[in-house]
């Protein structure tokens, strides 16, 4: 059976070139970069090069790039690190209701420690209103953290506007750009971003490696204490193969950027239109155009997400219902609820996220397979039965 992977927002396959770039750093150039001897210096150089590539992609300086174990650690570091150094100054953080759990659960943790968190509403397309950000600012606001693009519905936030507001009020601005890297062009200086999280495995790089960009001069506490790695700001022996892999992956992600985005956007819109045309009672979740080029999220009424995923899987299609993290527990997606969807509709959403390996044939295959699967599920759905009876 053809395997069609359409869950690139959950994670992506590592590219061959990336694995090849990493391989020497496992067995040959394995030295500890902190050491004096030559073997170690090779690694130090490799790390520096990766740092430079990443900095260039973000419009940052190399000494503003700090490696972490992934997007989650970067998010934790950004929020807890700012909270820690802001003690005398204030205790108020502004975020949105549709952030990733790495942000939300960290904020909830701080809430228990006495911080005050404003969780901004979003509109029905998942957009944060910059005016809401402005209105939420208080004298005690120490951080604004708004994701660059949402992982479930793909809505791209007005980051430049929010960055401008943050700057005007002299409040550090963090953005979780884990989903945006490689899909949207980012310039941390132009957009007034003070802190930015990214994660290797979302753009065909390795898992277990990420970055926190920290604007030069920004005061932030250390999150992981220990050795003097990362100029004393993030301890722990450097994950050299991971760092090299992340560097290579972002380099490749930025090659032919515009062509890639154009191709994905076309496929995305074909999939959206194909599904909406062929399946009754379904609609697009998220914004139609301010949307990640790889994200399709469809609300399918009267059916439940996990069942839909299992049937898609049986047809060789890997997709997701809300975020991968939540699909284990099947709690309804907090993102979809924040859009105003009722619970049963939140449960009945399916997310297809495209990748570089996605083809037109795969999209057509999904458009062909989905309608009968949905029909079959509706036939055994008591909700559909009720709907038909009341609408007869």
């Amino acid at each position: 059976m053809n395997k069609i992977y359409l869950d690139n927002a959950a994670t992506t396959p590592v590219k061959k070139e990336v694995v090849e770039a990493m391989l020497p750093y496992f067995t040959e150039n394995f030295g500890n970069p902190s050491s004096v001897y030559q073997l170690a210096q090779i690694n130090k150089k490799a790390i520096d090069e990766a740092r430079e590539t990443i900095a260039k992609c973000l419009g940052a300086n190399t000494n503003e790039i700090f490696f972490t174990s992934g997007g989650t650690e970067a998010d934790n570091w950004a929020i807890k690190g700012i909270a820690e150094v802001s003690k005398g100054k204030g205790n108020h953080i502004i975020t949105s209701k549709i952030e990733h759990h790495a942000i939300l659960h960290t904020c909830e943790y701080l809430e228990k420690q006495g911080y005050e968190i404003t969780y901004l509403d979003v509109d029905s397309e998942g957009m944060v209103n910059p005016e809401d950000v402005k209105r939420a600012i208080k004298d005690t606001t120490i951080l604004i953290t708004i994701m660059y693009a949402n992982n479930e519905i793909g809505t791209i936030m007005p980051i430049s506007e929010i960055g401008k507001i943050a700057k005007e009020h002299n409040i550090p601005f963090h953005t979780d750009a884990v989903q945006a890297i490689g899909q949207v062009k980012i310039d941390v200086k132009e957009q007034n971003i003070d802190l930015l999280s990214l994660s290797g495995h979302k753009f065909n790089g390795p898992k277990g490696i990420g970055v926190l960009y920290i604007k030069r001069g920004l005061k932030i506490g250390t999150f992981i204490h220990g050795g003097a790695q990362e100029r004393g700001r993030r301890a722990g022996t450097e994950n050299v193969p991971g760092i090299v892999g992340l560097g290579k992956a972002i380099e490749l992600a930025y090659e032919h950027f515009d062509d890639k985005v154009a191709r994905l956007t076309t496929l995305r819109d074909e999939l959206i239109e194909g599904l909406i045309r062929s399946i009754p009672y379904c609609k697009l979740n998220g914004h139609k155009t301010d949307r990640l080029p790889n994200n399709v999220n469809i609300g399918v009424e009267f059916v439940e997400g996990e069942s839909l995923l299992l049937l898609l899987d049986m047809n060789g299609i890997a997709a997701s219902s809300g975020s991968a993290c939540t699909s284990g527990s099947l709690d309804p997606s907090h993102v979809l609820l924040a859009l105003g969807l009722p619970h049963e509709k939140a449960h009945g959403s399916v997310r297809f996220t495209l990748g570089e390996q996605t083809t037109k044939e795969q999209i057509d295959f999904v458009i062909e397979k989905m309608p009968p699967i949905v029909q079959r599920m509706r036939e055994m759905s008591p909700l559909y039965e009720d709907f038909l009876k009341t609408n007869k």
Partner: protein
Amino acid sequence: MYSEKVMDHFMNPRNVGEIEDASGVGTVGNARCGDIMKVYLKIEDNIIKDAKFKTFGCGAAVATSSMATELVIGKTIEEALKISNKSVAEALDGLPPVKMHCSLLAEESLHAALWDYAKKNNIKIEGLEEPKEDIHEHEEEAGCCNA
């Protein structure tokens, strides 16, 4: 994640559908938790002659519905009452821990259908309690679907 048996019952669910002139119908669960199960029973001479279901829910919910209806057909009401969530799960070669609550849903929907039958016929079934409106109500703390 799921056993082969669960996947078999999910892919080829037995007894999907409605019974027009059902002796008893029970619906449990709620959309909030993403699981609704509706069971139809046809009962004659104290024996469950037929059972059908409709389910909105995850793979485990569909499979347990299918298995529960299969187990119940041909049984007396008293025997049917003995079908517990554990026995349904066991008949499916087990369920992942986070999905055990689904087997509870199957037990409860059977009981709800039997309760409906008893009410309609004005009889009392020994050991059968009135179904809760929503079996999840008391589970709020454990999180909706993480029983």
